[in-house]
């Protein structure tokens, strides 16, 4: 221990010390000081002295809205009021409120009030800190992000995927048979929880306690911040125009924030207290805020998304008790026709995922936007499923249903069919079974096909880009009462594939109906279709050891006997793989590759991922501690016409040759050298040949000219001879 020196405070000369830095640092302005409580109001009418009391009374009334007024000082000079006044409130909060709400207020046509805190006038105007000259505000420099779809023009047409593990997030190019090639270096702390791609892959969103951030371009630069403290859930509209965020924390009043945060605070007074925000992704500003419906305020299981979008992002809708609100995104999110759509008892609704050409629409009509919803049985009413046209709100068709427990609205991707998976109870209400009601929206009068089953359907999935579907069902003997434990792995389910059979009813019309192609028993619970259709994985997620069964529904080979001959599909089990701790399956958006994932969030075994090709061959396996998520980057809709696709298919071998070459070049550096050298040789030879051929052509032309020249001279000679004879 060092000895403590004797210290006598009195012996120090305080006057010689410079405290100015400390003073400025700890200089706390006294709240509620006199000057803090005063506001200066300019722009008031200039009235003769006689009218001054009246004016004072009017202004007193106006300003007392914001709080208790202690005093109003209305200076009078030369028998007239001066057009400004000072109001003193009982506290500074009231004064701030007055500035916020009354600044810019129009008293009448001619007079507009300018309200400022006296304190601010003092600080900014009188102190001379702010010059009287107008200074153009500095516009933030435009930040170049680059082409947001740049990844689509990769020379080798490779896919990108994101992996989120431990504390880092990486984005890689997928290369068959090769190590991943990072697109950008791994980033630590890029998200506090999860990451999300927009539906067409243009943006990447990351989550932070203070809000959401969007990223894009070839270097994944930050595009915007979407300030929403405590944000939990996000959703993106189908065309990547809007972002929806939900936080349990209500939007705060600007005044309650720390002053340094106030400047860029994007919310207005009317947003305060709301929890659901719609953002315009491209400008990064909120466009609409909603409060949570009261029934969802304290729920543990938040239904998500709360906002549903029409296929073209033109409308969005949300459900409230006994009504849905439909908003027009192009008209500042106004309610369609300025009112809610009243639907008593509405349980769920769903937009069609595509525009639909209804049978009665004319050739040049735009595609129709359709919304479907259902209402349950009530005392005197049957349950109903309806489809409604937007924006006309005309109901196109309603079907009544009885003994209904639940209805799931499953839209086919094309929007042509809507399959209602109706869970019904027997009269005794002891057990359940299912009916499928399929609306055919493009046909006249919207006919509805009914498929009656004795089984209870546990899972239903349309095939993307097709009209087939798969159901997983089992016979309910009364033991299934609770929806949540339906899918118990030990049970044996029936898996059925349905396809359309065309039945001729007359010479020029045929009836389409769904018939089972085949069915078989298995314990699997989950159906995961390739986004391009044709291939499907049947599996059971969240088991210790899951089976992944890869099926082809259009197998190009002999059709087994037990399959229905009347439909064209042909089911074939291609391969069965096993994966421990399977929590998710992610198809790459072209359907070429598929990834099985074991996420640390749900299981602690086998964390990592395995990439398969579409027929189930393992291409890549990686085990990563604390592996969280794997996300293929989605791709936009293909712009190729059917003819283009046909041509590609026809020349598939030629394309394959190119890709195989680049694959070989990637896998082996020596081969790569050789291929590049051969390429050079081939090009050299070609240019040599074209030069030679050009030269040869010139030579031949010249030869011919010479020949012609010779013929001419011969003729000339003969003519001369003739002349001589004449002489």
């Amino acid at each position, binding site marked *: 221990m060092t000895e403590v020196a004797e210290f006598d405070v009195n012996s120090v000369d305080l006057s010689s010390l410079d405290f100015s830095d400390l003073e400025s640092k700890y200089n706390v302005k006294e709240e509620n000081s006199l000057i803090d409580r005063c506001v200066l109001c300019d722009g008031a009418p200039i009235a003769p002295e006689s009218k001054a009391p009246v004016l004072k009374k009017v202004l007193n009334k106006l300003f007392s809205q914001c709080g208790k007024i202690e005093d109003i000082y209305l200076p009078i000079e030369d028998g007239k009021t001066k057009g400004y006044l000072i109001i003193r409130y009982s506290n500074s909060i009231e004064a701030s409120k007055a500035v916020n709400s009354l600044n810019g207020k129009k008293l009448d046509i001619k007079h507009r009030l300018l309200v400022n805190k006296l304190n601010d006038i003092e600080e900014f105007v009188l102190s001379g800190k702010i010059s009287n000259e107008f200074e153009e505000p500095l516009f933030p420099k435009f930040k170049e992000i680059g082409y947001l779809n740049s990844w689509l023009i990769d020379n080798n047409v490779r896919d990108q995927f994101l992996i989120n593990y431990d504390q880092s997030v990486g984005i890689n190019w997928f290369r068959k048979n090769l190590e991943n090639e990072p697109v950008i270096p791994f980033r630590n702390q890029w998200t506090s929880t999860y990451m999300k791609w927009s539906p067409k892959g243009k943006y990447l969103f990351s989550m932070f306690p203070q809000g959401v951030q969007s990223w894009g371009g070839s270097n994944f630069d930050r595009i915007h911040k979407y300030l929403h403290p405590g944000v939990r859930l996000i959703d993106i509209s189908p065309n990547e125009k809007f972002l929806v965020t939900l936080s349990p924390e209500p939007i705060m009043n600007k005044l309650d924030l720390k002053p340094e945060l106030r400047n860029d605070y994007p919310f207005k007074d009317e947003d305060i207290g709301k929890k659901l925000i719609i953002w315009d992704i491209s400008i990064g500003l909120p466009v609409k805020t909603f409060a949570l419906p009261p029934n969802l305020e304290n729920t543990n299981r938040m239904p998500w998304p709360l906002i549903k979008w029409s296929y073209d992002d033109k409308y969005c809708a949300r459900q409230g008790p006994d009504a849905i609100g439909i908003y027009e995104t192009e008209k500042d999110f106004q309610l369609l026709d300025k009112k809610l759509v009243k639907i008593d008892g509405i349980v769920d609704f769903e937009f069609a995922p595509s525009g639909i050409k209804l049978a009665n629409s004319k050739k040049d009509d735009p595609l129709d936007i359709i919304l479907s919803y259902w209402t349950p049985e009530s005392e005197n009413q049957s349950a109903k499923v309806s489809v409604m046209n937007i924006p006309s709100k005309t109901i196109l068709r309603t079907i009544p249903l009885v003994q209904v427990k639940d209805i799931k609205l499953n839209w086919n991707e094309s929007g042509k069919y809507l399959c209602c998976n109706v869970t019904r109870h027997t009269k005794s209400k002891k057990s359940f079974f299912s009916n499928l009601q399929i609306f055919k929206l493009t046909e006249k009068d919207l006919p509805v096909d009914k498929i009656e089953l004795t089984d209870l359907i546990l899972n239903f999935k349309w095939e993307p880009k097709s009209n087939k579907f798969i159901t997983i069902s089992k016979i309910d003997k009364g033991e299934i009462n609770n929806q949540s434990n339906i899918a118990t792995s030990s049970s044996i389910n029936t898996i059925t594939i349905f396809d359309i059979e065309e039945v001729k009813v007359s010479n020029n019309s045929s009836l389409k109906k769904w018939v089972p192609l085949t069915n078989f028993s298995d314990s699997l619970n989950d159906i995961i279709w390739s986004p391009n259709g044709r291939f499907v994985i049947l599996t059971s997620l969240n088991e210790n050891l899951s089976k992944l069964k890869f099926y082809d529904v259009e197998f190009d080979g002999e059709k087994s006997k037990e399959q229905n001959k009347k439909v064209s599909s042909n089911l074939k089990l291609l391969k069965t793989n096993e994966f421990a701790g399977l929590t998710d399956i992610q198809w790459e958006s072209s359907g070429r590759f598929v990834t099985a994932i074991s996420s640390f969030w749900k299981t602690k075994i086998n964390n990592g991922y395995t990439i398969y090709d579409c027929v189930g061959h393992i291409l890549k396996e990686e085990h990563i501690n604390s592996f969280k998520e794997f996300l293929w980057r989605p791709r936009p809709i293909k712009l190729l016409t059917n003819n283009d696709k046909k041509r590609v298919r026809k020349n598939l071998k030629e394309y394959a040759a*190119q890709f195989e070459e680049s694959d070989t070049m990637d896998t082996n550096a020596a081969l790569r050298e050789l291929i590049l050298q*051969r390429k050079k040789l*081939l090009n050299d030879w070609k240019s*040599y040949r074209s030069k*030679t051929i050009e030269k040869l052509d010139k030579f031949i032309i010249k030869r011919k000219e010479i020949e012609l020249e010779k013929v001419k001279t011969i003729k000339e000679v003969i003519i001369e001879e003739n002349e001589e004879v004449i002489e």
Partner: protein
Amino acid sequence: MSSNKSMRPILLTGHERPLTQVKYNREGDLIFSVAKDQHVCVWYSSNGERLGTYDGHKGTVWSVDVSLETEFVVTASADFSGILWNAENGKILYTWNFNSPAKRCELSPDNKFLFFLTDQAMGQVGTVKIFQLNTSDLSKQSDEPVLEILNKGDASIKPTVAAWSYGGKYIITGHADGSITKYDATTGEELNRVKAFKETVTDIQTSSDKTYFVASSKDQTSRLYDIDTFELLKEYLSDAPVNSACITPVKDFVLLGGGQDAKNVTTTAGGEGRFDCKIFHKIFEDQIGRIKGHFGPINCLSTHPDGHSFVSGGEDGFMRLHHLPKSYLDFQYEVEKTAEALQHQNNENPDALKVDA
């Protein structure tokens, strides 16, 4: 057409002595062959059936050529003569007489001229003699050459083979010392001379447009030259003396034929004479295949004008006619496939984004 599925060569037996040259006519339906047995044979190329012979030479026939319309045939022989034959009936139209053996003859591309290469022997100078053909009456030819290109050295550098260039513009000669020379075919001026090989040049055959040629040599190599620039384009390395080489049309291949000299065969270990015909990739210079069959060195090779078959003539006195299988014709390097695919796509859709590899 015989089956293309398996490559079963047709054995053409008609000559009794080693073959010296084989040649297709322009259409490729006939094969003309000459050998040391004094006969000139003509065969159907489709099935190998012999159509007939031209008889009249009294010594080894070294060289043969056939006119564009297959009207007449010209041969050069060791009996100091060159003969012009009526192709149809085998009658002798005209005989040129020389003072030394005629080793090579060829008609100019327009068939208005022909040359004979006479050997540097019997005290004569090796000479390329160019004659103008009287096409109006084939039986009345001039004995006087329009041009003579004399060898300017001793027998060690005598010309051994010769060929016309495109348009009859030049004459290319190969020499005993391994050099090749280009002469102007109208003035006889020596334009280029390159020491291409270490040993004697055995054959020169031009591409179908006669703008480049392949020369082969006893030094086990074969080389591709451009006629205008006389620039070495490619080199093909064999493992035995090369007696003949030809460029295949359609596919970018070069065929090389040869083998150990007959007199050395017994001294070679293992009795392996390497009498096979080797297929090289013309551009990449790789050997991509070989075809066995002859039991003596291959002396001469010629390909069908459509590139689908070729014929080889051997020291063993046999000719082997090969119809090439589909796998051979389909063979492509990856880079060739890619280049073709790219070109195809660009032709089909010229506006398409050009992917630069």
